[in-house]
């Protein structure tokens, strides 16, 4: 193998000529070609965010249809099958097509900017991750719009999902779509892990990472471990359904509970994967508006990781009623109670940050701070389900529906909307309208609590989940009507966000580089940032590079204007995993059709599998192979160089 060429990067100061050269190297070509080939993390991040918000709107519409059906007892707006497909598709959409991708979107956009890098470690993999997400989303929705949506809940228990009881294409769409989507999640997670450890600015040692990075990193490591379990489960299900294998079929020695174990050993860590990055947004955003650093940075970072480690040991709390031995239940009960502790660390850190700071009330701040309350309510109701005997009563009632919506809307949607208000100026150069923002916040907050707070009582009064209609036992009807009204108010609030975005894109107040006077690197570059992010690679000396002149650094000061120029090609710097010492010049790939072609090939392959059109499967596989070849074709400009040390 050829020795890498050794070169010491030039260190210098940003200038007009330098920037012109970088623009030439980094800018995506305009027009449709650029649109289809771009590997710019910011472009991909925004696509992720827009696509995920579209799925949020779809999932929300499904929820509203269900809320109409449930607005009173014994209504007949929907047939049982329609209702069952709606609640299953609603869960699938919100959990797989909104909650995780929206966070991937923000992280994709923000990470290189937070980390002082010019792109993610694997830009083409990033593009692939998006295209497959889009393709898998369309694949899953193709089932729904043709009347073949999933109809066994997002958890998809066998045997009801097996062919004997579910002969249509519904479950094949869902099973193959989930395997397909798993590819996107997996490559995305791998990219985040490598990016976090290898492409940080020099000096951004591991204890200076923004908490958002900790959150997404932790979630990504977890995804790499658990997504294979669910992909396998769905693949085995498809084999059972289409080829007569017996993994889950008792008649052939299979086990229905095998599905539940495979699903929840994925499912519960996944729940943390779709909240930890959002908690990171709050940990990073809240202190900016409190005008002080986050209280207990190290504890919060460690508790993020600890939550996930505990998170691997709690999956059986979804299965307390399945007849497992009591000793086992006791262990999982203990783990599920103990996981409260790392969550409590974050809560107390946020409250202390507000208390010891000088809060400036903005819309973003309102979303971030109200999230603390919603998190606590969702957390304590989760703690109730951790106690086995109590859970045997609570589980599968509306109490759990209330719990999970406090968790997912409270800890995902509220921080995400807050993050939109917070980072929109960075992404677009314009503020979102603050006045509209207040309306946005209060309608969402009131609507949400009106819908879901009384739902705890609905559950305590015993109303079971996943029923398309109900009899009016002691006030269920009135409680459900309140919930339905609340859900429409909440939906109206969400519409205000979309309206605000559209309005402010045209006429929002201009935001400068650092409109919130925030401390981290993304605010040191123009809004919106140029394609190359940083004209010179910054050197970081503390957690708050932009606040150092006021609160001091950890000794030396960060250097933002002077740094490695890296303009010999499309380059950024690789640094060591813990201390972030410069290690290697990374040659970044140019825009490429390969990710899109690979996604198209895989789409054809999966459609072929679904319809058992083996010719199409073969063609899809061949296209995918061609794309991989194109991707891996050696080019001289991608040869990595090590800088000379010393």
């Amino acid at each position, binding site marked *: 193998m050829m020795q890498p060429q050794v070169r010491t990067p030039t260190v210098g100061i940003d200038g007009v000529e330098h920037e012109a050269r970088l623009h030439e190297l980094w800018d995506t070509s305009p027009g449709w070609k650029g649109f289809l080939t771009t590997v710019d993390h910011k472009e991909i991040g925004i696509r992720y965010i827009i696509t995920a918000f579209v799925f949020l709107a779809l999932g929300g519409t499904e929820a509203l249809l269900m809320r109409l059906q449930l607005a009173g007892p014994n209504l007949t707006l929907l047939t049982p099958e329609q209702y069952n497909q709606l609640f299953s598709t609603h869960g699938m959409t919100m959990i797989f097509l909104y909650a995780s991708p929206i966070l991937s979107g923000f992280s994709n956009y923000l990470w290189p900017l937070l980390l002082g890098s010019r792109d993610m470690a694997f830009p083409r993999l990033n593009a692939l991750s998006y295209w497959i997400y889009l393709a898998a989303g369309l694949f899953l929705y193709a089932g729904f719009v043709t009347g073949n949506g999933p109809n066994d809940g997002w958890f998809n228990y066998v045997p009801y999902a097996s062919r004997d009881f579910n002969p249509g294409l519904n479950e094949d769409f869902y099973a193959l779509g989930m395997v397909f989507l798993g590819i996107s999640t997996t490559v995305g997670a791998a990219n985040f892990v490598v990016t976090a450890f290898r492409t940080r600015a020099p000096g951004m040692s591991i204890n200076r990472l923004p908490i958002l990075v900790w959150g997404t990193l932790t979630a990504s490591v977890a995804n790499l471990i658990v997504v294979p379990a669910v992909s396998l489960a769905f693949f085995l299900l498809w084999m059972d359904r289409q080829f007569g294998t017996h993994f889950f079929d008792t008649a052939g020695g299979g086990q229905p509970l095998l599905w539940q174990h495979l699903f929840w050993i994925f499912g519960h860590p996944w729940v943390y994967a779709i909240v930890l990055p959002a908690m990171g947004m709050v940990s990073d955003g809240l202190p900016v508006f409190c005008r002080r650093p986050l209280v207990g940075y190290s504890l919060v970072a460690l508790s993020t990781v600890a939550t996930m480690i505990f998170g691997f040991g709690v999956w059986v709390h979804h299965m307390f*009623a399945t007849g497992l031995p009591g000793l086992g239940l006791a262990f999982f009960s203990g783990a599920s109670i103990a996981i409260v502790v790392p969550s409590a660390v974050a809560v107390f850190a946020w409250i202390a940050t507000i208390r010891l700071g000088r809060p400036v009330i903005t819309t973003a701040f309102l979303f971030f701070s109200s999230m603390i309350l919603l998190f606590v309510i969702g957390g304590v109701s989760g703690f109730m389900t951790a106690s086995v005997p109590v859970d045997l009563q609570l589980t599968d009632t509306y109490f759990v529906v209330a719990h999970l919506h406090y968790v997912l809307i409270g800890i995902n949607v509220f921080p995400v909307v807050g993050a939109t208000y917070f980072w929109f100026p960075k992404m677009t150069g314009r503020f979102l309208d603050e006045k509209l923002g207040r309306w946005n916040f209060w309608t969402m907050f009131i609507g949400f609590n009106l819908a879901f707070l009384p739902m705890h009582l609905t559950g305590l009064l015993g109303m079971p989940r996943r029923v398309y209609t109900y009899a009016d036992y002691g006030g269920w009807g009135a409680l459900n009507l309140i919930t339905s009204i609340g859900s429409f108010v909440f939906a109206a609030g969400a519409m205000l966000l979309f309206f605000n975005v559209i309005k402010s894109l045209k006429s929002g107040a201009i935001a400068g580089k650092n409109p919130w*006077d925030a401390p981290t690197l993304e605010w040191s570059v123009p809004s919106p940032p140029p394609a190359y992010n940083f004209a010179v690679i910054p050197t970081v000396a503390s957690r708050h590079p932009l606040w150092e002149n006021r*609160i001091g650094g950890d000794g030396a000061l960060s250097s933002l204007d002077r740094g490695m120029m890296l303009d010999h090609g499309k380059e950024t710097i690789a640094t060591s995993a813990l201390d972030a010492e410069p290690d290697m010049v990374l040659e970044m790939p140019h825009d490429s059709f390969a990710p899109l072609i690979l996604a198209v090939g895989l789409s054809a392959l999966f459609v072929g599998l679904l319809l058992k059109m083996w010719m199409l499967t073969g063609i899809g596989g061949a296209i995918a192979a061609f794309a991989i070849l194109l991707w891996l074709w050696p080019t001289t400009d991608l040869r990595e160089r090590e800088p000379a040390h010393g």
Partner: protein
Amino acid sequence: MSDWPLSYLTSAGPRAREVVPLTWYVLLVSIAVSLVISALLWRALRRTRPEDQSIEIRDVPIERGTSGVRWISIGLMVSAVPLAVAFVWTLLTLAAIAGPPAHPGLVLDVTGRQWWWQVEYAASQPSDVFATANEIHIPVGVQVLVRLHGADVIHSFWVPQLSGKTDAIPGQTNTSWIQADKPGRYLGQCTEFCGAQHAHMQFEVVAEPREDFDRWESLQRQPAAVPSTAEASRGLSLVEYRCGLCHRVRGTAAGAVSAPDLTHLMTRRTLAAGTLLNNPGNLAGWVQNPQNIKPGNLMPNQFLSAQQLSDALAYLETLK
């Protein structure tokens, strides 16, 4: 039945009663924590003076401030206490409710089916074994062991006033147990999603004094009475060759077991797993148009002539 027949904040038997105080404990701790956090948050926010509102964010100086880690350590220490109590209490309660009784007074085999419950009463004499559907009679004050079977997909057995949930899973036999303190009807409901009519998969546990139970049991053991009118006799033949494809009426040629046993249909309070009250009008509607009443259930519409329907009903109403 009470106003809240599926609520579990009250109980009607020892197994559910063990759990009620623990449920209230975790519920009250949860409410208290939510209130305390709300108060802390509110106090923290209140420190923002109104005039601060108009100030530009960059005019508020950044300060490193105090470390604040004490908030976290004190918060965790305070939180640890109710958590530890909850865990120990959970283990104690789990031990109290988990084990099935060593010497149950009655053993039942309950099978979850799409979308109804089959209930079999074990007996020492094979001829004394009988099955019924969607209505479980038990004597008051007796520990009843319930062996749970899944015939098709997973269902979950839940009588909140008497016991928490236990799943009925194909390929394995789970056990639950129930005991009622006093006579009454206790509502049960399937709580694992099981398909189109999961919503209408209820049952009732009827707790009765010992002598009433014994009377009920000896009645259930009897085969169906021989019809005494011409109308009912015609109804019997119709039931045998139509309904008998799925249903059983003991003592007749209707002998299939994939649908509820009809031998003593008229002793049951509801039809179609709690969907309808069992009265002649509902029964006629159900026999003729079950798909309109419970769409997707496994009983097809019957398209009987008026004569056939009245014959069938005349016979069914003799099944007491």
